[in-house]
C-alpha cells in the first residue's frame, strides 16, 4: 500500500491499465481493478489545428461531444501539427490522437497498417498496443512470399484488430480533385492518388494550347534528390524524371516498368531482368550495372527511405547482360511495393562522383539541381517556390502523350481553385478542400470529384492509459463516433465511414467481413454496463467495482 501511495494518479492508472490489458486478450476485460469504482478520468483528443487541416479539429470536437453520451468527459487539444507529432511519436504523451494516414502508394501493401501500426515493436506503434495474436499474424504476413497466403493472414489480422478495437478508423476520405475537362483528356485516376497519379502524367493529352499540363499543388516542392527524398510530394515529381523497376498500377497491383520481370525464386532470392534499350536523358544507356550501383549507393549512404529494406540485402550480383540476383538475409514480403516500386534508378556515371565533386560532404546535402534520369519526362527547370517544368521524353518506352507537365505552387487552396476556374491551372496534383471541389464542379468545363483512397482519418488510443486499456471501453467509444455526421458535414460527403484499417478501396487486401460500426450510443452503454462500468447521479461514468 505504501508503494501505491507513492505513485502519481496517472502512473497508478497506467499500471492498473497495463494489468487490465493483460487480462483483456480474447475477452472483455474486467477493467483496471485498482481504479475500482472511481470516476473515469477526463481525457483529451490531440490533433492538428485548423490552419494545418480544417477537418481534424472538427472531427475531434464532434467525437468529444459524442463521448458525453457514455458519460465521459473528453476535451479537444488542437495543436500545431509538428508538436502533436512530437508528443505522439517521440514522447508518447497523449490520450487519443486524430491523424490522417494518407493513401501513399507504398501503403497499398498492408505492412504499414497491419505490422508497423499494430505489431508490438512496430515503428508506428507508439500507442502501446500489444496483442500476441496480432504480433504473430503481423510477423507471418511479413515473411509469407505467396500473395494469396499472405492475403489470408492480412484478412485475419484485420478482423482481430477490429474485434479488439485497437483503434477507430473514422472515415476513408476521398481524394478530392478537380480538373478542366475542356482542356485535358485521358486522365487515369489511381488508388490513393486520384488524378494526380503517375498514370495520368503519361496518359493525359491536352486538347488545346502548347500541350503542357498545368498541375497545381499548394505545398512547394522541397527537394529533387532521389536519394534523400522521403516525402510523397517529392516522389510524385521524381518518378516522372527517374524510372523505377516496377510501378504500382492504378488498381494497386504491381506492373513491370524498367524491370522486364522481378521473380521471387525462393523466399530469400530475387531475380531481376532489366528491360533492354533504355537510355538516360544524357544519351547514356541504362545498364544492369546502374541497377546494382543504385542499390549499393543507397545502402552506402543510408538513404533514409530505403535503408530498412536495404539492410535485408545480403548480396547483389550481376548474373548476365541484363540480369541481377539479390540474396536476402530473411524473407520480406513488403519489399515489392516498399522498395522495388519506390527506388529510383540512378545513372552510375553521374552519381559515382557525388558528393565528392558536388562540394558537399554528404549526399543528403546534395541539391541535384539538374536531375538526369531515364524516366518518361526530362527535367526542364525548377523555379524554386514557384514551378517545376518537365518535358516529354519521346524516346521512352512509355512516352507521354502530352508535351510536358508544369507543376505550379499555389499559395492556398482558394488560389488554386481560382486558377482552375480562370483556366490557368488544368488539374490538381493532390487534394483540394471538399467545399471548393463542390463549387468547381458546378462550373462549365470543370470536373470536381472525389476518388477512392486507401488512407483514413484515424482515432488512435493510448493503450497504456486509464480506460483506453480496456477493450470494452474502446469499443464503446468506437460506437459513439458520429461517422455519418462527420462524413456528410465535415467531409462534405467526400468520404466513406471507417471500419477496417485496410480500406475497402484496397480491394486485394481488404477483408469484406469487417464493416464499419454504426453509431449506437445505447449499445455502447450496454457494453460498458456489461463490463461493470456504472454511472453516478450526474451521469458520469465510473470504473467497474
Amino acid at each position: 500500500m505504501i508503494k501505491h501511495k507513492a505513485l502519481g494518479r496517472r502512473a497508478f492508472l497506467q499500471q492498473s491499465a497495463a494489468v487490465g490489458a493483460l487480462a483483456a486478450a480474447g475477452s472483455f476485460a474486467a477493467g483496471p481493478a485498482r481504479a475500482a469504482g472511481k470516476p473515469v478520468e477526463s481525457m483529451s483528443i490531440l490533433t492538428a489545428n485548423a490552419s494545418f487541416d480544417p477537418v481534424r479539429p472538427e472531427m475531434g470536437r464532434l467525437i468529444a461531444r459524442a463521448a458525453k453520451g457514455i458519460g465521459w468527459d473528453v476535451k479537444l487539444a488542437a495543436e500545431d501539427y509538428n508538436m502533436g507529432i512530437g508528443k505522439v511519436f517521440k514522447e508518447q504523451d497523449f490520450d487519443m490522437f486524430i491523424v490522417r494516414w494518407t493513401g501513399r502508394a507504398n501503403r497499398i501493401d498492408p505492412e504499414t497498417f497491419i505490422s508497423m501500426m499494430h505489431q508490438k515493436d512496430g515503428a508506428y506503434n507508439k500507442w502501446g498496443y500489444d496483442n500476441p495474436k496480432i504480433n504473430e499474424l503481423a510477423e507471418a504476413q511479413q515473411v509469407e512470399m505467396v500473395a494469396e497466403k499472405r492475403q489470408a493472414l492480412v484478412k485475419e489480422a484485420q478482423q482481430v484488430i477490429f474485434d479488439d478495437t485497437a483503434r477507430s478508423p473514422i472515415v476513408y476520405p476521398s481524394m478530392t480533385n478537380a480538373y478542366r475537362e475542356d482542356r485535358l483528356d485521358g486522365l487515369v485516376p489511381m488508388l490513393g492518388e486520384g488524378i494526380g497519379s503517375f498514370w495520368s502524367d503519361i496518359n493525359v493529352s491536352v486538347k488545346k494550347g502548347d500541350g503542357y499540363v498545368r498541375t497545381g499543388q499548394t505545398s512547394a516542392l522541397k527537394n529533387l534528390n532521389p536519394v534523400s527524398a522521403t516525402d510523397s510530394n517529392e516522389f510524385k515529381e521524381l518518378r516522372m524524371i527517374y524510372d523505377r523497376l516496377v510501378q504500382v498500377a492504378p488498381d494497386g497491383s504491381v506492373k513491370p516498368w524498367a524491370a522486364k520481370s522481378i521473380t521471387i525464386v525462393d523466399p530469400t532470392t530475387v531475380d531481376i531482368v532489366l528491360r533492354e534499350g533504355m537510355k538516360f536523358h544524357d544519351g547514356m544507356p541504362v545498364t544492369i550495372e546502374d541497377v546494382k550501383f543504385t542499390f549499393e549507393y543507397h545502402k552506402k549512404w543510408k538513404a533514409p527511405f530505403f535503408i530498412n529494406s536495404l539492410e535485408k540485402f545480403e548480396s547483389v550480383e550481376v548474373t548476365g547482360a541484363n540480369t541481377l540476383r539479390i540474396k536476402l538475409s530473411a524473407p520480406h514480403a513488403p519489399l515489392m511495393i516498399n522498395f522495388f516500386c519506390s527506388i529510383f534508378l540512378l545513372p552510375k556515371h553521374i552519381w559515382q562522383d557525388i558528393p565528392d565533386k558536388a562540394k558537399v560532404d554528404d549526399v543528403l546535402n546534395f541539391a541535384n539541381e539538374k536531375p538526369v534520369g531515364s524516366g518518361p519526362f526530362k527535367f526542364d527547370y525548377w523555379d524554386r517556390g514557384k514551378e517545376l517544368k518537365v518535358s516529354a521524353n519521346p524516346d521512352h518506352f512509355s512516352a507521354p502523350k502530352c508535351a510536358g507537365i508544369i507543376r505550379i505552387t499555389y499559395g492556398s487552396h482558394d488560389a488554386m481553385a481560382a486558377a482552375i476556374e480562370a483556366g490557368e491551372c488544368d488539374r490538381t496534383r493532390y487534394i483540394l478542400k471538399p467545399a471548393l471541389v463542390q463549387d468547381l464542379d458546378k462550373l462549365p468545363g470543370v470536373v470536381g470529384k472525389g476518388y477512392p483512397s486507401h488512407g483514413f482519418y484515424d482515432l488512435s488510443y493510448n493503450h497504456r492509459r486509464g480506460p483506453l486499456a480496456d477493450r470494452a471501453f474502446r469499443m464503446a467509444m468506437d460506437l459513439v463516433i458520429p461517422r455519418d455526421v462527420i462524413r456528410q458535414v465535415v467531409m462534405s460527403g467526400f468520404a466513406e465511414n471507417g471500419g477496417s484499417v485496410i480500406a475497402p478501396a484496397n480491394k486485394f487486401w481488404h477483408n469484406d467481413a469487417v464493416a464499419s460500426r454504426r453509431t449506437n450510443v445505447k449499445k455502447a452503454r450496454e457494453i460498458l454496463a456489461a463490463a461493470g462500468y456504472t454511472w453516478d447521479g450526474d451521469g458520469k461514468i465510473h470504473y467497474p467495482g
Partner: protein
Amino acid sequence: MLDYVLRRLVYTLITVFAVASILFVLFRMLPGEPTLQVISPAMDPAVQERMKEAFGLNQPVGLQYLIYLKNLVTLEWGRSFVSAQEVTDILSYRFWNTILLMAAGMCLTLVLGIGMGIIMAWKRNSPVDVGGTIVGLVFQAAPPFITGLLLLMVLSYRLGLFPTGGMYPPGARPDGLLDLLLMPEFWHRIVLPTLTVGMYYISTPMLIMRDSMLEVLGSDFIELARAKGLKPRVVMFRHAARNALLGVVTIAGIMVGFAVGGQVVVESLFSWPGMGQLMVESAASHDYPVAQGTFLMLAILVISLNFLTDILYSYLDPRIKITAKGMN
C-alpha cells in the same frame, strides 16, 4: 561626421551580432525536431541519427553556434535541411521577388500618399481632406487578405481583367531579372498585389504628410512666402512640402523594412514566391539555416535602413548638425 558614421556602423554591427545570436537560440527553442519535418517519425532511430549527422545537428550546441558565427562572417549561410540548396541562393532569389513587389507597392504608396497628404493639408477640412482621411483609415483597417481577395474576386475572377497570381505565365520562366522586367505578363501580374500593398500602407505616409504639412503651413516662413506673393503651388511644394517630408522619410525606412517581411498574406494570396512565404515555410519546417537566414537578412535590412535614415536626416534638414558626439 566620419567619426559619427563609424560609430553608428559599429553599433549597427553589434546589433546584427546580437540579432544573429538571438535567432540561433530562438529557433532551437521551438518545440519539435527538424528531423521530424523531413522524415517520417516512424523511421528507425538510426535513420533519424543519420539525418542529424547530415545536418550537423549531432554536434554539441556550443560548437554549432561557433560554426554558425563563422559561417555568418564568411557569408556561407549553409544549406537548407529541406532542399539542400545553398541558403544564399534561396535568399537571393526570394529576396528579389519580394523587392520587386515591395518596390512597386512602396512607389505607389509613397507617391500617392505624399501627394494626397499635401493636397489634404492644403485643402484642410474640405471634402477632399475628410474623404481622404476616411478612405485611408478604412484601407488601413482592412487587412490585406480582405482587400486582396476582393480585388481578386472582382477584377480577376468576375471581370477576368487580371491573372489570379504568379509572376509570369506557367511554363514561361524568364532568363534573369531583366528578361522578367521586360515581360508584359509580369507587369500585368504585379498590378493586383501592388494595389493590395498600396492600399494597406497608403494611410501612413498620407496622414503623416498631412500632419507635417499642417504644422509647416502654420510657420512664419510660409506666411512670408505668401506675403512675397509667390504662387500657391510654389509655396505648397517648394516651401511647405519639402520641409514636411522629413517625417515621412523617418517612417518610410521602417515601413519598407516591415513591408519586406510582412507580406506573407499578399504573397500567399497571389502565389508570389517571396521572403514572407519563405519565413513561414522555413520556421514551420524547422529548416534552421533558411529560417535564420531569412530573419537575419530582414534584420540587417531594417538596421541598415535605420542607419541610412539617420545619415539622410542631416542632408534633408540643415538644422541637424552631426558632430563627433552625435546629432544636435
